[in-house]
């Protein structure tokens, strides 16, 4: 059959005057999304500058520039190059991962309160760390990070396998249920181990509070996983747009739902697994960032996916910097700051007049 011409219909045959048409809804000017995209890049640059300049001994932008590009080895140079710059880079990477993972997990589950932790990733990482310490004794930070990564991967693969064992393959519902089951199992085992092993408990106490402090050195090892996760996320964009209309409509539009879900869950696993490896569990970032991004871009994943890494990195850096400001001379960890901000945000979501659907 030839391509069908839609304009060809005789226009004299009008559909009968249907129901009294209500006043057409007011037309919204299309958002200027390119401008918003640039704004999100700018926001990240600003947040990075703040993160580099603010600390126990604040520095000016000139000092920061001096330290990064023409260092002479003075105290501020060393502070910035050895402490604040690596910490900022770490925050950016963790933010990219959490922002993207949150966007993807909410897109696939069509659930506005979904978060990457749903797939058992954080508890899987915790279990791997405490189990290894219970068996092998104290471990260096790098080994802990790699264990966290392995644990996160195993947990999410397990969740995906259990979720796919249902008759019709992995659906958002079976994945969330499998995630809850694996999370419960892992937390139970973690609780059991730390009851019997003080060293594991001590490690867990520090690790469990997501933080950007003193966690450098891992990034050089795991950055390829971030890159792979970003690529998978970008490949998933069109499928996400179709899946947003429901799985049935997505199939009707020619999407292979199983493949799209596998790509999406793969990306979430890599990204959220890397985030927990880099910074420990940071609750709320994966939940907040997609909402902030949607408010900027609207529901189109062709914009949501590219913008969410920038908003994610901005949010994590701002929270980390705020934590350093609030609790001077000590600091609040990024996860604590985000939880304090995140809880009221949940209330705001619940109290909105119109519940958001994805």
């Amino acid at each position: 059959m030839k391509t069908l011409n839609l304009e060809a219909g005789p226009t004299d045959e009008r559909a009968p005057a249907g129901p009294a048409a209500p006043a057409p809804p007011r037309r919204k000017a299309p958002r200027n999304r390119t401008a918003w995209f640039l704004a999100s890049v700018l926001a990240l640059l600003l947040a990075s500058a703040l993160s580099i300049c603010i600390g126990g001994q604040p520095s000016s932008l000139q000092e920061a520039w001096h330290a990064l590009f023409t260092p002479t080895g003075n105290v501020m140079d060393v502070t910035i190059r050895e402490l604040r710059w690596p910490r900022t880079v770490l925050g950016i990477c963790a933010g990219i991962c959490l922002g993207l993972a949150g966007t993807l997990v909410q897109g696939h589950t069509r659930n506005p309160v979904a978060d990457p932790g749903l797939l058992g990733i954080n508890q899987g990482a915790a279990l791997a760390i405490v189990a290894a310490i219970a068996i092998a004794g104290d471990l260096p930070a790098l080994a802990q990070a790699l264990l966290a990564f392995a644990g996160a991967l195993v947990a999410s693969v397990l969740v995906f396998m259990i979720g796919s064992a249902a008759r019709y393959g992995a659906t958002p519902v079976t994945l969330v249920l499998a995630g809850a089951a694996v999370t419960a199992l892992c937390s139970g085992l973690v609780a059991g181990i730390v009851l019997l092993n003080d060293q594991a408990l001590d490690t867990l106490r520090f690790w469990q509070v997501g933080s950007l402090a003193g966690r450098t050195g891992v990034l050089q090892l795991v950055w390829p996983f971030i890159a792979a996760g970003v690529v998978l996320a970008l490949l998933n964009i069109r499928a996400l747009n179709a899946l947003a209309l429901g799985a049935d409509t997505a199939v009707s539009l020619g999407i292979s739902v199983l493949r799209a879900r596998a790509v999406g869950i793969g990306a979430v696993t890599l990204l959220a697994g890397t985030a927990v490896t880099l910074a420990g569990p940071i609750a709320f970032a994966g939940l907040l960032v997609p909402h902030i991004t949607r408010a900027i871009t609207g529901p189109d994943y062709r914009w949501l996916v590219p913008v969410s890494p920038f908003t994610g990195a901005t949010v994590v850096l701002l929270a980390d910097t705020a934590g350093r400001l609030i609790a001077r001379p000590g600091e609040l960890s990024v996860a604590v700051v985000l939880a304090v901000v995140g809880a009221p945000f949940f209330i705001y979501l619940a109290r909105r007049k119109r519940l958001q659907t994805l």
Partner: protein
Amino acid sequence: MSTPQQGLRARDLSLGYEGADIISGLTLDVPDARVTSIIGPNGCGKSTLLRGLGRLLNPRSGDVLLDGIPLREHSTRHIATRISVLPQAPTAPSGLTVADLVSRGRHPRQKWYQQFSASDERVVEAALEATDILELADSPLEDLSGGQRQRAWISMTLAQETGILLLDEPTTYLDLAHQVDVLELVRRLYREHHRTVVMVLHDISLAARYSDHIIAMKDGAIVAQGTPSEVITPECLLEVFGLDAHVVAEPTEGRPHVIPLGTVGAAPVHT
């Protein structure tokens, strides 16, 4: 006219979800370039059949054939250029505009490296125009009335440019005026372009009004099919729905119209 190889057909088709088959051994030739309605009581398998025809549900045995080739041997993307399916009461994310929704109908014809092309743009605009919602293009879907929203979804299936459209209860949740509006639209668009429509409808009189062909189903099997006046008879209504009814000719086109009297087995309304 088409050769017997063309079009959409079911051969010895069995479908089900869990437990027993809902449909078993069903054979059907969907009439080409006609509007067909499937009617039947709740749970008779009419939506299941539609899902099977649209490969939303894979056959347990038997086949659905598109141009003589089983659907499972076509890629899902190729099928998407031939068949569009509109599920019952579809949902879209908050903030999605009408134009965004309709544009997504172009998906099967786009490659991942391609931007939305000028020809895509034209097709989307034509689809919006054909469904009379061009001026709503930039409105968020949730601001529309139920009838307008259904027009937007139908517009999306138009943008898909398929020869076959499957609609699962397209009038659900609509008041009578909007139901008529949607059915008029479907009939006008698809008759004019000699396209095939299969829809599941609850209202027998509306099905008679807007269809060329009626399929009556009961317990997962086809009980009768043919033109509305062939199928919608008091005998058939009694057999399929257990409904005691008069069938009269409606005054405009003389199509059958159902006047229900009561259900068989229920307490008699009068003696």
